[in-house]
C-alpha cells in the first residue's frame, strides 16, 4: 500500500498543536513509517508555492490547526482544502476559534489601536500600522489582510473531521492517526478523538446535587481534591465541555475552561454553561441572585474562552 501523504499546517495558532504531535514521542516514527509528510512548516522546509503546484486532492490528510485570522490563513485553508482528500480541523483554534478567537471582543481597529498605540510598551509616535501593501524603493511589499473577525476553519472551508483540544491529548491524536492509517474513519463531519459525554464523566471528583451560594476566585479557596470544583464555588466548565482530555486540568486542581468544545447536541457551549451555572445558584430572590452573579466577573471570557467564533453570536458587536 502506498504511504499516506500528510500535510500539517498552522494558521492563527501558538504552535502547541505541533508540539502535541511531537508528544507522540517514539510513535512519531510509526507515523513516519506509515506516511510521508509533505508540508509541515514548523519542522520541514517547504514553500507555499510548492503546495500550490500540487494537483488537487494530492494530499491524503491535512491536519490544519489554528484559527482564521487573516487573508493568509484563509488562502492557505482554501488551498489545502483543494489539495487534500481529508481536511481535519486540528485543535481548538481550528475547531472553535480557540484563544485567538477571543480577539472577537474587538475588531481590526480595536486590536490595532491597542497593539500599535495604547500599550505602555509601545513607542510608535508615527502611528505606524500594518499595511496590506507598502511601497519600498525596491518595489511593493505585501502583508495579509487582517480581518475584523476571527473565524474557525469550518466557517472558512468544508471540514471533514474535527479533533479538538488545546492541545489535543497525545493519546487521542494517536488514536486518530491509527484510524486514518487503517482507513477506519467515521462519517465526515464527525468529531474524532473525543468522548461523547462531557468532562464530568472522566472527572474523578465526587459529585452531589449542586447548590452554590457563592462563586470564589482562586485566592479565596484551597479546593478540596475529592469534591466537585463547581460545588466548591469554582466556575468549572466541565459539565458543558466534551470529554476526551482525561480531565487533565481538573486533576491538577484547576477548573475546566472548555477547550474540547460543546457536546454534539449543544448549539452554544457558553450559553449552556451559563444556564447550568445560573440554575444552581442557591437564591430565590432577585437581590440574592444578583449577589452571586456579581461574583462571576467575566462570563464572556469564562464561558467562551475557547469558542467565541464558534458561538451563536460569533463576536462582540462593535
Amino acid at each position: 500500500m502506498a504511504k499516506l501523504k500528510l500535510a500539517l499546517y498552522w494558521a492563527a495558532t501558538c504552535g502547541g498543536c505541533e508540539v502535541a504531535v511531537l508528544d507522540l514521542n517514539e510513535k512519531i516514527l510509526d507515523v513516519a513509517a506509515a506516511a510521508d509528510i509533505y508540508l509541515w512548516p514548523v519542522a520541514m522546509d517547504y514553500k507555499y508555492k510548492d503546495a500550490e503546484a500540487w494537483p488537487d486532492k494530492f494530499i491524503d490528510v491535512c491536519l490544519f490547526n489554528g484559527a482564521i485570522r487573516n487573508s493568509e490563513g484563509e488562502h492557505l485553508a482554501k488551498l489545502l482544502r483543494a489539495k487534500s482528500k481529508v481536511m481535519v480541523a486540528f485543535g481548538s483554534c481550528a475547531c472553535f476559534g480557540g484563544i485567538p478567537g477571543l480577539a472577537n471582543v474587538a475588531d481590526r481597529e480595536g486590536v490595532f489601536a491597542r497593539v500599535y498605540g495604547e500599550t505602555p510598551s509601545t513607542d510608535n509616535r508615527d502611528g505606524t500600522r500594518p499595511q496590506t501593501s507598502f511601497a519600498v524603493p525596491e518595489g511593493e511589499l505585501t502583508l495579509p489582510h487582517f480581518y475584523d473577525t476571527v473565524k474557525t476553519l469550518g466557517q472558512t472551508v468544508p471540514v471533514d473531521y474535527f479533533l479538538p483540544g488545546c492541545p489535543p491529548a497525545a493519546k487521542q491524536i494517536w488514536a486518530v492517526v491509527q484510524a486514518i492509517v487503517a482507513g477506519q474513519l467515521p462519517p465526515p463531519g464527525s468529531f474524532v478523538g473525543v468522548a461523547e459525554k462531557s468532562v464530568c464523566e472522566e472527572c474523578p471528583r465526587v459529585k452531589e446535587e449542586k447548590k452554590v451560594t457563592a462563586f470564589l476566585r482562586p485566592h479565596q479557596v484551597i479546593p478540596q481534591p475529592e469534591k466537585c470544583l463547581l460545588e466548591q464555588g469554582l466556575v468549572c466548565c466541565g459539565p458543558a465541555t466534551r470529554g476526551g482530555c482525561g480531565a487533565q486540568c481538573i486533576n491538577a486542581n484547576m477548573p475546566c475552561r472548555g477547550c474540547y468544545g460543546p457536546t454534539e447536541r449543544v448549539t452554544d457551549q457558553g450559553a449552556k454553561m451559563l444556564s447550568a451555572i445560573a440554575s444552581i445558584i442557591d437564591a430565590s430572590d432577585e437581590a440574592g441572585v444578583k449577589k452571586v452573579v456579581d461574583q462571576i466577573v467575566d462570563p464572556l471570557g469564562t464561558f467562551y474562552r475557547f469558542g467565541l467564533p464558534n458561538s451563536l453570536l460569533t463576536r462582540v458587536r462593535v
Partner: protein
Amino acid sequence: MSGENSFEPRIIGFLCRWCSYQGADLAGTSRRHYPSNMVPVRVMCSGRVDPTFVLKAIADGADGVLICGCHPGDCHYQSGNFNAMRRYPLLMKALEQFGIEKERVRLEWISASESEKFALVVKEMTETVRRLGPLEWNRRVFQKGQRKT
C-alpha cells in the same frame, strides 16, 4: 427600510404556558391593543427558556427578546420561574459584554390575569427597541465575519 422611523422591531417573546401565555390570550379576548412586533413562542415554563434561545433569536435577526413567566411563587411548576430569575442576570451580564443593550432583552412576570400588564410590556418594549434601532445581528455583525454556517 426607508428610515429609522419606519423601523419595525422584531421581538421574540417566550411566554410560559400557564401564566403569561394565558395573559396574552386574555389580552386578545379582552380586545386590548398591543403592537404585533412581538411574536410569541410558547414554552411550558419560563424555566425552559435556555439562554441559548435568546442568543439564537438574536443571531437569527431578532431586535429584542422578551421572556415572561409567572410571578415568583406562583409558578405552575413551583420553582420553574426561579430558574429564569437566576439565569437572566448572568445572561444580561454576558450580553452586555457582547455589546447588546440591556433593554433589548427583558424578563417580566405576568400572570394569567394581567392582560393589561402584558399589553403594556409589549407596547413599552416595542417602543424602547424601536428607539434603540435595528440590532440585525445576522446582517450587521455577521457580515464583519462573513459567517458561514
